[in-house]
């Protein structure tokens, strides 16, 4: 009863804040779950009651309450505090009267994959049109009532106003009549001038903050269903491995263990999003399941990837990058220019596999009955989860419902719904709801890893030191290998992350993609191939600067060349993948990249920031259609280890909806990039991951974080670019460049701590 009381208090507190609190407190106590299914993020569908409904995203009830669907997942980027606010601004709604509906996985919403830093980019105009459509209908009703031109009416503060006659009607007084009107074509409704969007671009409040600081926010593992059991799975340590036989007697003897369920491995030629298979221990508590798993004795057939070894693979990868590959970008005559160069420089760079290590390990809850399957999951991609669950169960997608919970971090891992399918398979096998819980060891050892890479760069310098020739070879097991095991050549989309789209002043440029077969599941991780491409390119430009004994800032600006839009012809490519965006709308704008470099060196006092015992490094990179430059200052700590003292980051992400969340994403990107620079390394031995947990896959702690991380977001009216990922790529090279300035040790591989730095 004590619990019940706490739950109710919290619910009324949140309701008082005008938040979508309906579901926030549900399911905390076992008794609650009987009453209604868990709704971790409040309502999952627009109200069915009468009102104005303009499509799948918006409903206005007869009391004026506006419900807006957030169709993308909340994983810390603040999307629930951003897109719905944009709709409200366009509509003229009072946020206190707006409820956020967290959309289930449903193609009716269009693409829901919260990935690629594109929720705002994809949603900016369409979501404004959602608000504008409803506004046009409310205004039409008011104008008709008042017999005035619609153009004289203004919608703001949840009412339509006619200034001339000083009349106003609240939305609630207009909804019933508006609902009778035909819904205009969203593509033809007029959008407000941007200057009329009251909140957009400001420091918007974090709507889910109160739920999180009270512990009420429900993540995937927090969902409780009556009769629910918990499963922990022993997965093959090597991808493609299979259970030969297992002895479960000791596992079944653990109190609380209910059953052992063998799960099939991936079917067909591709791993894709399929579960890895193994043996699941299903129990009444997580602890019992974990103990049961520890007691399992399994004999594995490790399969074809059992020889995967990072040390030997590195040799092969390096060999691939040192040999000619598939030419993917070409202007001028690189070989001729290299032959004529006054001086040449070459370098090879290596970045290991990385794991996402989101603080919340994967988890999902499922129940399966005659009507179908219902799951609750922290997923970045509820539609893919729906498809994968349907495929695993052999049922039609229409029979599968995927509810999205809060995500305890995603970083790309939770775009892959293998863990959701595991929950569904086990719920069916058990005939009860099942929660699958991955441990940290599972997360570190059985993920979809950021690809390991080797890159070879060679530059020819003319008599003045200017770069006349640029050769870039990149070798890494590509992401498409996860979906077709035969693929070993990097795809255009991956090369578009920092190779094909890199603007260079050099007249002779060639880039080559080199083959590398995959032996584990390769997946995208926050900023993807930009991590290693930016590390290599930005380190190499710094090497050129030091070889010339010139200022790295001046050389970087010179290598990029003057402000211009770098066309596909200039870049020497058929097409710039450009993150799926038209190049006309989102050009490769060297002027914007130069601007963030100029700003970051200005605010950091680039020349003045160097002091005795302290050095600075600079890097800049365009990714996800956003331009970011970073200056890192490093010194040595008492033990002689490199420490990052201070970081400055300037980002031009075009139009920003939520300035505070853009800043927080950039602050977070600095820390994420620091983990990559200092610590991140997943290594393989005998086909299996050698690391186990945070003790051997460390990530940055507060003691390593600089006292000051300065973030400046450039004010821009360009179309929105990405925010979540583009802060990451320049961080590691900025630190490595600073380390060189401090120690004269050039780190051509990451992580730095493994180099003893």
């Amino acid at each position, binding site marked *: 009863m004590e619990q019940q009381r706490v739950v109710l208090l919290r619910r009324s507190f949140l309701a008082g804040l005008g938040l979508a609190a309906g579901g926030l407190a549900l399911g*905390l106590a076992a008794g609650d779950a009987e009453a209604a299914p868990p709704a971790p993020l409040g309502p999952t569908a627009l109200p069915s009651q009468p009102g104005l409904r303009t499509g799948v995203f918006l409903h206005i009830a007869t009391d004026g309450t506006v419900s807006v669907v957030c169709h993308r997942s909340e994983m810390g980027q603040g999307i629930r505090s951003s897109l719905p606010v944009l709709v409200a601004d366009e509509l003229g709604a009072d946020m206190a009267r707006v409820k956020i509906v967290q959309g289930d996985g449903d193609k009716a919403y269009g693409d829901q994959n919260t990935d690629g830093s594109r929720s705002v980019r994809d949603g900016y105009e369409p979501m404004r049109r959602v608000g504008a459509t409803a506004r046009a209908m409310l205004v039409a009703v008011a104008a008709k009532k008042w017999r005035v031109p619609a153009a004289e009416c203004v919608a703001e503060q949840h009412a339509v106003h006619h200034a001339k006659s000083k009349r106003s009607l609240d939305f609630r007084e207009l909804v019933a009549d508006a609902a009778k009107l035909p819904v205009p074509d969203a593509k033809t409704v007029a959008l407000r001038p941007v200057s009329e969007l009251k909140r957009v671009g400001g420091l918007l409040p974090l709507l889910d903050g109160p739920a999180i*600081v009270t512990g009420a926010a429900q993540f995937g593992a927090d969902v409780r269903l009556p009769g629910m059991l918990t499963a922990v799975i022993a997965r093959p340590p090597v991808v493609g491995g299979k259970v030969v036989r297992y002895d479960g007697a000791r596992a079944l003897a653990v109190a609380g263990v209910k059953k052992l369920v063998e799960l099939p491995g991936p079917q067909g030629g591709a791993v894709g999003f399929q579960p890895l298979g193994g043996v699941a221990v299903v129990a009444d508590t997580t602890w019992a399941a974990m103990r049961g798993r520890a007691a399992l004795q399994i004999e594995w057939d490790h399969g074809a990837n059992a020889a995967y070894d990072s040390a030997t693979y590195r040799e092969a990868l390096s060999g691939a990058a040192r040999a000619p590959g598939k030419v993917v970008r070409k202007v001028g005559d690189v070989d001729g220019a290299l032959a004529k160069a006054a001086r040449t420089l070459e370098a090879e760079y290596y970045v290991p596999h990385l794991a996402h290590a989101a603080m919340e390990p994967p988890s999902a809850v499922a129940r399966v009955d005659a009507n179908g399957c219902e799951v609750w999951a922290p997923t970045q991609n509820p539609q893919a989860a729906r498809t994968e669950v349907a495929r695993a169960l052999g049922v039609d997608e229409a029979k599968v419902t995927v509810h999205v919970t809060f995500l305890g971090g995603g970083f790309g891992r939770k775009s892959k719904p293998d863990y959701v399918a595991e929950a569904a398979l086990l719920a069916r096998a058990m005939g009860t709801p099942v929660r699958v819980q991955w441990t*940290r060891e599972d997360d570190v050892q059985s993920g979809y890893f950021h690809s390991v890479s080797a890159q070879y760069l060679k530059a020819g310098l003319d008599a003045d030191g200017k770069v006349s020739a640029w050769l870039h070879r990149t070798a890494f097991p590509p992401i498409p290998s996860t979906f077709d095991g035969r693929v070993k050549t990097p795809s255009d989309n991956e090369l578009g992350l920092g190779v094909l789209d890199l603007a260079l002043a050099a007249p002779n440029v060639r880039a080559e993609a080199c083959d590398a077969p995959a032996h584990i599941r390769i997946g995208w991780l926050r900023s993807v191939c930009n991590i290693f491409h930016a590390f290599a390119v930005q380190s190499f430009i710094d090497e050129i600067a030091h070889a010339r004994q010139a200022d790295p800032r001046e050389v970087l600006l010179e290598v990029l060349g003057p402000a211009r839009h770098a066309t596909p012809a200039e870049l020497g490519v058929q097409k710039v993948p450009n993150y799926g965006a038209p190049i006309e709308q989102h050009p490769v704008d060297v002027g914007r990249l130069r601007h963030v470099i100029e700003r970051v060196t200005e605010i950091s006092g680039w020349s003045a920031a160097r002091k005795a015992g302290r050095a600075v490094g600079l890097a800049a990179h365009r990714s996800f259609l956003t331009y970011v430059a970073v200056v890192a200052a490093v010194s040595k700590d008492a033990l002689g280890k490199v420490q990052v003292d201070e970081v400055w980051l300037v980002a031009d992400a075009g139009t920003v909806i939520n300035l505070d969340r853009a800043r927080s994403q950039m602050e977070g990107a600095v820390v994420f990039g620091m983990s990559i620079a200092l610590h991140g390394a997943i290594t393989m031995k005998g086909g299996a991951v050698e690391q186990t947990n945070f003790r051997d896959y460390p990530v*940055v702690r507060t003691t390593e974080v600089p006292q000051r991380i300065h973030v400046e977001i450039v004010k821009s009216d360009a179309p929105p670019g990405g925010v979540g990922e583009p802060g990451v790529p320049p961080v590691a090279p900025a630190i490595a460049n600073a380390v060189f300035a401090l120690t004269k040790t050039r780190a051509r591989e990451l992580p730095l701590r493994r180099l003893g730095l």
Partner: protein
Amino acid sequence: MMKIHINGSVREIDVSPDMPLLWVLRDVLGLPGTKFGCGMAQCGACTVHLDGKPTRSCVLPVSSVGAREVTTIEGLSSDASHPVQRAWAEADVVQCGYCQSGQIMTAAALLEKKPDPSDADIDAAMSPHLCRCGTYVRIRGAVHLASRLKRGER
């Protein structure tokens, strides 16, 4: 049966004595605000108070809790009124939020011991905690803010 003093009340539980307190909270007592992050006291997501002292519940067998009072994020306040919660909200600290229950519990304990902590005090106290989103800089600021709120300066 075992008795456990939790958030101001006493609950009877019937669990294996080696079950870590974390799973008793989450799976038995219906208190999922305390999070599982690593299972080996490496990340701090599972932090609760044991007689006011921040403790990693993922490695603490429930049988060793004894008569000590356990306080979880749910018991810190029922209405987000604790100064640390207010400061976290005011500074918009959180990103994904998963680690923040643990961070908040440690910050609250720190302020009981050191009402006006230095940056070094904060780093030392908060260092058991990992935040993959990278909210560390805002956490430092929010602990200072909570200190001022608690001392009634704001």
